[in-house]
């Protein structure tokens, strides 16, 4: 553990230490998460960015104890929420163990709701089960929660079936259910990827308001650097199951040090610039079934040397940021 994460952990709402997950897949063992640590303070919005297969979703599922035990080959790590610490990453009954402190919102909100029950029935059920509320108070609380996620006609939505609602509305309902237990940390796994851009703006704005009002910490997972830039104050960049760079958002976007972070930023298309996004990243993400020695990004990296192919660089803190690279780029100045 580094000094930086020690100080962070003192006041952390959630801290994760040396998380490792291997999953069983049809074609072999997938090294999904290979030793990541991070911490989130109360009221902070942390962004985790990475492409598909980077392990960002698996890492968060493991943190919440939501991994399907059937497919886990091996999982280890330390999850601390407030005063409680869990050492067992795979748990038999996820909802009773970590849910009051941790809650999650998924990408596909419509699929996460039961299609044959009204939204109201599902919400009151959840509230009755979790807080022992009777039907009347549970429904009142459900309306309150829908108001909290800025749904104007809460009564109509409560009596609707999920397919009668838009994707954005379903996502609001999911957020309402997630915050009903007043968690310390809300994990949002690609919460707006399935949504239109104007709806995305509404949902991101809603998450921010909830943070402002309740002071809960938010971990937002996204492949979209724009979403991360809009939301997060601290950013972790993941590649091949590891954190390759972590930094405050301002520093990361102004001056990314890891060649992958830099390339990702350079090839993200922007609406505010005319210049063609320069240089696609050559090659494709690595096959997570085979672990190669050295840096996982080396085969696609323009700066790679012999050392990169042989030794895996550790995540080394330097000032406010940490970089896992033998030849970090950019930045003459030290921050």
């Amino acid at each position, binding site marked *: 553990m580094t000094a930086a994460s020690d100080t962070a952990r003192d006041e952390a709402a959630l801290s994760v230490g040396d998380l490792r997950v291997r999953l069983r897949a049809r074609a072999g063992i997938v090294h999904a998460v290979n030793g990541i640590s991070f911490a989130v303070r109360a009221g902070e919005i942390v962004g985790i960015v990475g492409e598909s297969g980077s392990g960002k979703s698996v890492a968060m599922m493991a943190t919440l104890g939501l991994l399907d035990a059937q497919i886990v080959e091996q999982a280890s790590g330390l999850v601390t929420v407030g005063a409680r610490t869990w050492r067992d990453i795979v748990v038999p009954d996820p909802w009773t163990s970590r849910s009051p402190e941790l809650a999650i919102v998924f990408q596909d909100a419509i699929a996460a709701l039961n299609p044959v029950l009204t939204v109201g029935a599902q919400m009151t059920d959840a509230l009755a089960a979790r807080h022992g509320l009777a039907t009347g108070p549970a429904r009142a609380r459900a309306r309150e929660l829908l108001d909290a996620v800025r749904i104007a006609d809460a009564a109509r939505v409560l009596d609707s079936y999920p397919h009668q609602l838009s994707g954005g509305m379903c996502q609001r309902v999911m957020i309402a259910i997630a915050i009903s237990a007043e968690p310390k940390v809300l994990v949002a796994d690609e919460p707006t990827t399935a949504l239109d851009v104007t709806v995305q703006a509404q949902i991101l704005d809603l998450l921010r308001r909830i943070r402002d009002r309740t002071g809960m910490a938010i971990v937002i997972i996204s492949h979209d650097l724009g979403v991360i830039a809009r939301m997060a104050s601290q950013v972790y960049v993941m590649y091949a199951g590891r954190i390759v760079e972590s930094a405050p958002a301002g520093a990361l976007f102004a001056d990314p040090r890891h060649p992958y972070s830099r390339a990702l930023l350079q090839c993200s298309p922007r609406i505010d610039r005319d210049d063609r996004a320069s240089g696609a990243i050559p*090659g494709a993400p690595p096959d997570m*079934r085979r672990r190669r020695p050295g840096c996982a990004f080396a085969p696609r990296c323009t700066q790679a040397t012999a050392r990169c192919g042989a030794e895996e660089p550790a995540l080394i803190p330097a000032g406010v940021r940490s970089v896992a690279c033998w030849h970090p780029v950019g930045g003459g100045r030290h921050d």
Partner: protein
Amino acid sequence: MTGIDAAAPPDDAAASGASPWRRFGILNALFALWLIAMLIAALFGPAFLAEQAMLPRLDFRLKPPDAANWLGTDAVGRDILARVVVAARPTLTIALGGVAVGLVIGTLIGTLAGYCGGWVNLVCMALVDIKLGFPTILFAIGVIAVFGSDTANLVIVIGVTGFVTYARVQRGVVLKIKAQPYIEAARAVGSSHARILALHVVPNALSPLLIVASIDLVRVILLEASLSFIGLGIQPPTPSWGGMINAGRDYLQTAWWICVGPGLVIMLTALGISRLGDWLRDELDPSLVT
């Protein structure tokens, strides 16, 4: 363009993992041997064992299995093992023929209904409903009474009574395939409907049909048995597996082996066909490669 992912070779990790024969497994090999044995029985059995299978020997009536008669003897003293071997040819001819007829008719109707939709769908599904509302046995009696009970008629009757399952399954599968983007992509490059059906729809619908067929095979063997029971199936003294079970029903309490021999044979054959069908389906499906 600088380096691109295109330069990478196709992902062959899974393909190199195990050869098709490794995935075949010992159990499947045993079933394959069994089916080969049945095939040999069907081809050569009648030539060698016809006499033991057909001629009654009343002094050997209802003998339980022993060293001389491995599966025992039946009510008129015929060796059950010999009868099972000889019965392989008529039974398998009718079963495979019946399944094939049902498969072809059902696939045709189901594909048309699913792909064309509209009034074609209504007509095809009306055919299916008419068939469902018409008692199978009554239909069989009618056809056989008019045309006689030779093998070809039996095959047609059994096939026609079985097409409904294929048609229903195929219609559902085709509806799903029709909604796949690759069908629209084929239309966009100018493929005709016939071409799309032959190249995309039918090959992608094959595996569910194979599964249905392997289940249907058992149904067909048993249907032949019930037709034999009312005297419309394979005519005695020619034995059939279903007919043998039927004949043994009255002796279930006293001479269980009359039923058990052919029963085991039907079970093993059906199981073998369905297991090999499964294996074949997985091997033929390149989408399962990775």
